[in-house]
């Protein structure tokens, strides 16, 4: 299974205020999927990620897909099968946009 890396040309930052808001919402069981907690920027393309997307993005540092899913399963209260589907789909979208790359 290949390792996943963030494209170093992508500039990104977390939005601390909204990150705190999202984690507070998670504690209370609120739906926080529409709260953007980070922004990615590359070649004029902008992307806002929610809390799950941001956590996946931050783990694209040489980890493999299974490792990312396993670590997120411990952190988020989501069915493992659903999480696996979400993570795989999200990584595929990031790859298509050139925001991440794979390396054997």
């Amino acid at each position, binding site marked *: 299974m290949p390792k996943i890396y963030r494209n170093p040309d992508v*500039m990104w*930052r977390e939005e601390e205020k909204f990150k705190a808001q999202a984690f507070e919402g998670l504690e209370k069981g609120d739906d926080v999927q529409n709260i953007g907690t980070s922004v990615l920027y590359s070649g004029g393309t*902008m992307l806002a990620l929610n809390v799950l997307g941001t956590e996946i993005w931050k783990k694209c540092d040489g980890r493999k897909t299974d490792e990312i899913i396993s670590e997120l399963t411990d952190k988020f209260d989501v069915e493992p099968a659903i999480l696996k589907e979400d993570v795989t789909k999200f990584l595929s979208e990031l790859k298509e946009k050139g925001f991440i790359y794979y390396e054997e």
Partner: protein
Amino acid sequence: MKNDWILKAPLTINWAITNRCNFKCRHCYSRDDPSEELDRQNLSHCIEKIKEAGVFSINFGGGEPLLRKDLFDIAVFASGRGLSVSMNSNGYLISSETAVKLKESGFSKVGISIDSHIPGTHDDFRGVKESHKRALKALFPLNEVGIETSISTVICKINCKDIDKLIEMARQNNVKHLNFHNYKCTGLGYSNKDELDLSPEEWRVFYLEALNAKQKTSDIHISVEDPIIASLGYKDGSSLVKGSVCGKLSLNIKSNGDITPCGFIPIVIGNILNDNLSEIWNNSPVLDMMRNKTPRGKCQKCGYYSDCLGGCTARALALTGDINNPDPHCWYESQ
């Protein structure tokens, strides 16, 4: 409508680094601006502040940025701090040697202003003979050194029916990005609006044709950024915010460091040399008003308001005196 998702800092700063220019454009918004220029030392200090605030990119404009002899040094400093650096230029001063220096100093993108596929039409609009020839000629060395090029076209009476020809001109010059900018009524753009600006119905026709061309064109990225196209059923999925991006994703800095919400809104909300960018970004009453507009007039009953948020704030302000008024370019009348 309260807009709660405000980023902690702008993503982009549009920086009119000088007001000096070698052109006499008929729509120019900065020709009469007497503001002085920050020197290189102060500029470096300001760039540090911008980087610390979390900004990703600087786009230099003006005036003609290449008239600043220290542009390359400034770009070296900004790119060395991890900022993405680009510029808009008329292309007149870009030779092969200049292109190499731009690349070496960290420019990743350069936009060249070309307003017509017809040389004489462009030259008349820009007020300088052979400017069309020189603009096209600038594209080749920029592409050669690996700088991403784009053509920026100000849409007005002289070119609104030439969409296909403008696309073909971009294609023939190996340009992958074509930006259609809507006409702004600021500075000479205001003085010459009766002659150059389109009527709301003409804008509707232009955008229908431009969006159709965008859909059909796969080899060139065509940018048609105007909030009012929401009423044509078009939603720009690439933007992070609704309505104007000014004051939500970007800010403008003038040559003397004064900060304005955008280059076409002459309201100074601070100065980058003396003020804290984050403080201004988070607490400016002007930015707050722009982010939380109150629909007036026909916008009050319009079903598209939640997407377009009244259209271009600069145009509403310039032509009606109130940012909350409907964008004067908007053609849509709800039933």
